[in-house]
């Protein structure tokens, strides 16, 4: 199957090696533990394994079978056929890190295109070849800011509007370090806007982290916050949903020093949580502080334009315990997916999908806030997601509508105590007006149930 040797091949090879049996190759291993009997189910053929996995998958009801308004950091968008067609090219997906640029120009040039597009989209100067996901990208921003100030500014302000998983990830990463995290521990209200974070900034603050749109879908102009942050000598990091940037001002325009994001919405399937794509872009002056791989332009010895991994001296394989991050891989194939997606959609397509999300979400919000008992939690401008205050437990409403094959959104009570009646509703281009009307009818009906 996947190992081509015949018995004759193996015998000939053993003869060359000068031993009789394959087992002899393992004579240095502790004898009493050698060759354990593994308790695993018996092997299946391809036909059987496909059937088994289809059966397992059958037990899932997906966003394609249910009507779903679930977002909260992962979004149900359409991925054009071209994206997967390119991802399925073995030359891309069965290659590894382009350590040998002479025979890896495909991967390298694709990374360069990715860097260019994400830098352009975010309004930043440089972008790395990606981090694991939107959460770890924020953790790397914290790490970068900490090292940038050589530990002298250990305080990091996290807006409560940053995705709960991202904040939790940052806590895990920094538990054993000098970094202190404030902002989401009750120092400000959950609905705090950027101006309410400003009083938390002091001369030990290294980084302020906000989201755009934030977890509740709200969009803020962060220009004043950026000014205050810079006046205090700190850095500003903005976590984005890149689809929103098809329509909205680039965070670079606000004065962000670091832009991170979850790139899943750029043509990457939901796939129960991963693999996704961690965006990370920054200003030119911080390029050497940024962790992660980078492709740079150069020429080969025949005078041809070509690309190579550059600034590798910052990375763990050279700096070892002096590296600022241990990151080694990037999300290569997912960065390629995002690149193909953005290339195909182009400037018209991205604007179009961004607007579709915006209009549909606003239609939904209008309709829902028209139902007696429901109201929008915030009157702040929003993109494609919004928080609704329900007349009773959001979880109960959600459970009830699930019985009718409708995922009404995300009840945020488990992440934000006191918000047990609040439902976070996301709308994408995949939701038709009919879906939305059905959601509205369901939300209304459930009150009488």
């Amino acid at each position, binding site marked *: 199957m996947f190992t081509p040797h015949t018995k004759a091949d193996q015998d000939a090879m053993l003869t060359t090696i000068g031993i009789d049996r394959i087992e002899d190759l393992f004579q240095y291993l502790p004898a009493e533990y050698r060759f354990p009997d593994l308790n695993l189910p018996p092997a299946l053929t391809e036909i059987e394994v496909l059937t088994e996995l289809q059966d397992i998958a059958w037990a899932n009801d997906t966003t394609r079978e249910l009507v779903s308004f679930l977002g909260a950091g992962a979004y149900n968008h359409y991925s054009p056929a071209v994206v997967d067609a390119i991802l399925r090219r073995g030359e891309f997906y069965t290659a590894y890190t382009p350590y040998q640029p002479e025979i890896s120009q495909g991967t390298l040039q694709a990374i360069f295109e990715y860097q260019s597009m994400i830098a352009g989209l975010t309004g930043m100067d440089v972008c790395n070849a990606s981090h694991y996901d939107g959460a770890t990208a924020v953790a790397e921003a914290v790490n970068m800011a900490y090292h940038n100030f050589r530990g002298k500014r250990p305080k990091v302000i996290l807006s409560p509007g940053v995705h709960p998983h991202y904040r939790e990830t940052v806590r895990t990463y920094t538990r054993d370090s000098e970094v202190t995290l404030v902002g989401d521990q009750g120092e400000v209200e959950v609905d705090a806007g950027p101006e309410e974070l400003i009083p938390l900034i002091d001369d030990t603050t290294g980084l302020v982290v906000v989201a755009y749109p934030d977890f509740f879908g709200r969009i803020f102009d962060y220009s004043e916050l950026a000014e205050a942050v810079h006046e205090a000598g700190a850095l500003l990091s903005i976590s984005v949903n890149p689809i929103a940037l098809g329509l909205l001002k680039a965070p670079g325009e606000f004065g962000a020093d670091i832009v991170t994001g979850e790139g899943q919405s750029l043509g990457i399937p939901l796939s129960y949580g991963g693999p996704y794509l961690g965006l990370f872009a920054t200003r030119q002056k911080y390029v*050497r502080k940024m962790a992660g791989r980078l492709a740079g332009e150069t020429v080969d010895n025949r005078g041809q334009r070509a690309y190579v991994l550059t600034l*590798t001296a910052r990375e763990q394989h050279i*700096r070892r315990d002096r590296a600022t991050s241990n990151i080694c891989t990037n999300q290569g194939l997912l960065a390629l997916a995002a690149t193909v997606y953005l290339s195909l959609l182009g400037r018209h397509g991205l604007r179009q999908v961004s607007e579709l999300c915006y209009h549909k979400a606003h239609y939904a919000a209008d309709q829902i806030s028209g139902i007696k008992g429901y109201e929008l939690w915030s009157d702040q401008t929003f993109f494609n997601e919004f928080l609704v205050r329900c007349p009773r437990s959001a979880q109960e409403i959600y459970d009830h509508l699930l019985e009718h094959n409708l995922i009404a959104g995300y009840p945020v009570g488990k992440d934000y105590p006191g918000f047990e009646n609040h439902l976070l509703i996301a709308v994408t281009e995949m939701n038709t007006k009919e879906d939305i009307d059905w959601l509205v009818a369901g939300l209304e009906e459930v009150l009488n149930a």
Partner: protein
Amino acid sequence: MNIPADLKYSENDEWIRIEGNTGTVGITDFAQDQLSDVVFVEIIAEQDEELNQGDACATVESVKAAADVYLPVGGTITEINEDLLDTPELVNTDPYGEAWMVKIELSDPSQADGLLDADAYQKHCEVRLA
């Protein structure tokens, strides 16, 4: 390999030129050769900063390696070489001259007694090339 007789050396391949109470610090010819083409120099130390012997004062990067530069003798930074930021290749072409990195006011000149002289440093290099 060029190892000027009038300098003192650290085992970590820094040199220091001591004139009165002033020291000038850089990295050696051996070090630049091991690094190959230097593409970036960052002086970490700040003007007037007081550093101890062994504290990092600069970082040097080539395409295949990165090295921290440590102060061979403690002191207060009196001058830093800004030219290296734009022309890091000076480290390769003139390691003992134009590529000096920082100048310091020595806090304890006796610390220099523990450094290597040119002969001892020469041996230190040869051992590593073998």
